[in-house]
């Protein structure tokens, strides 16, 4: 993984975070800030450890992306962070959500949808995949799929969905601040064949 590749992905995530901040602010009607604190390019085996060694439950919303760009985008967090985010998104007092019901799940999925679409827009508008003109690439995301499971099992499922045994993932540590209340989540992009990871 070259420095150039990481730099390019960092620009994409930062731009996507800006777009997603605006979209979430509009949706919530409250000031919302999503910021990328750090980005890493890792073999997936190591990324599993980054998300907690698999012991505790992990909440993830995954979108499969196909078309001109191929990969899986995952928004992941632990239970406390995810439920805190749900409270913010649903306009509830902190600590109201204690388990993943339909509303909490829906809030997480909607967040993933907004962030995912912002990321895809940033990716296609910034450069597009190889051989395409920026802005012309047709990209087809699936609806986000909500999973709450062991972190290791989730990450393994992401990698094997790509039928790849050597996947490099881009992992961002992302801060959400909604009306001055912070929540930390991770946003991951597992690139498929249409994305250069070696340039």
């Amino acid at each position: 993984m070259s420095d150039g590749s990481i730099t390019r992905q960092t620009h994409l995530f930062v731009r996507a975070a800006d777009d997603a901040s605006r979209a979430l602010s509009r949706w919530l009607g409250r000031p919302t800030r999503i910021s990328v604190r750090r980005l890493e390019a890792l073999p997936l085996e190591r990324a599993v450890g980054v998300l907690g060694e698999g012991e505790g439950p992990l909440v993830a919303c995954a979108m499969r992306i196909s078309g001109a760009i191929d990969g899986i985008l995952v928004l992941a967090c632990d239970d406390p962070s995810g439920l805190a985010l749900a409270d913010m998104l649903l306009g509830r007092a902190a600590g109201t959500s204690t388990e993943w019901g339909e509303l909490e799940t829906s809030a997480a999925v909607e967040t993933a949808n907004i962030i995912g679409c912002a990321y895809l827009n940033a990716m296609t508008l910034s450069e597009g995949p190889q051989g395409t003109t920026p802005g012309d690439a047709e990209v087809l995301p699936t609806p986000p799929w909500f999973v709450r499971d062991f972190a290791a099992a989730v990450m393994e499922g992401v990698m094997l969905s790509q039928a790849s045994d050597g996947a490099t993932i881009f992992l961002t540590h992302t801060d959400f601040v909604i009306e001055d209340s912070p929540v930390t989540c991770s946003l991951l992009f597992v690139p498929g064949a249409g994305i250069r990871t070696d340039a």
Partner: protein
Amino acid sequence: MTHPPAPSRRNADVAPTPPATRPTAFHTNAIGIGEIGVARHEGVLRTFVGSCIGLAIFDQRQRVAGLAHIMLPDSKGDLSQPGRYADTAIPEMMRLLRDAVGGLNLRLAAKMVGGAKMFAFQSGVTVGDQNVAAVERILQGLGIPVLARDCGGERGRRVSFDITNGEMRVETLGLPPAIL
């Protein structure tokens, strides 16, 4: 033992392992993605699986067992990390088991879990399905009976194999643990 980190020998005799595998001297030993652990006499081998397979092969008389975390069905000739693939992990684990007992004859049996479909956008014959089929086919070809299995579904599993009694404990979030 030629590869770092050198394990302590607290509870189990340890089979020599190549760099792609993890030495298993600890009482409870975590097996990572694409790794193989082998231990003798006592101890617990643990791993997490989603679409991958957690395969235990063991001889209860000899109190020797291995646990592999198999990612994909076919190595396509890649021998660099034998624990990753069904067609290389199983022969490698058998070699490690034989080494662990000093070449004694083994009467091997297997237990397996995993092969889940973790995401709805996985369609058709999933990698998990292919993993299950490949492991079963290879074990059948080697004459190793599968005594218990918990495969498929849509949930990840935490797997613990106890060498002292040959029990495989399978935990799924939100459900009581099962003993295979």
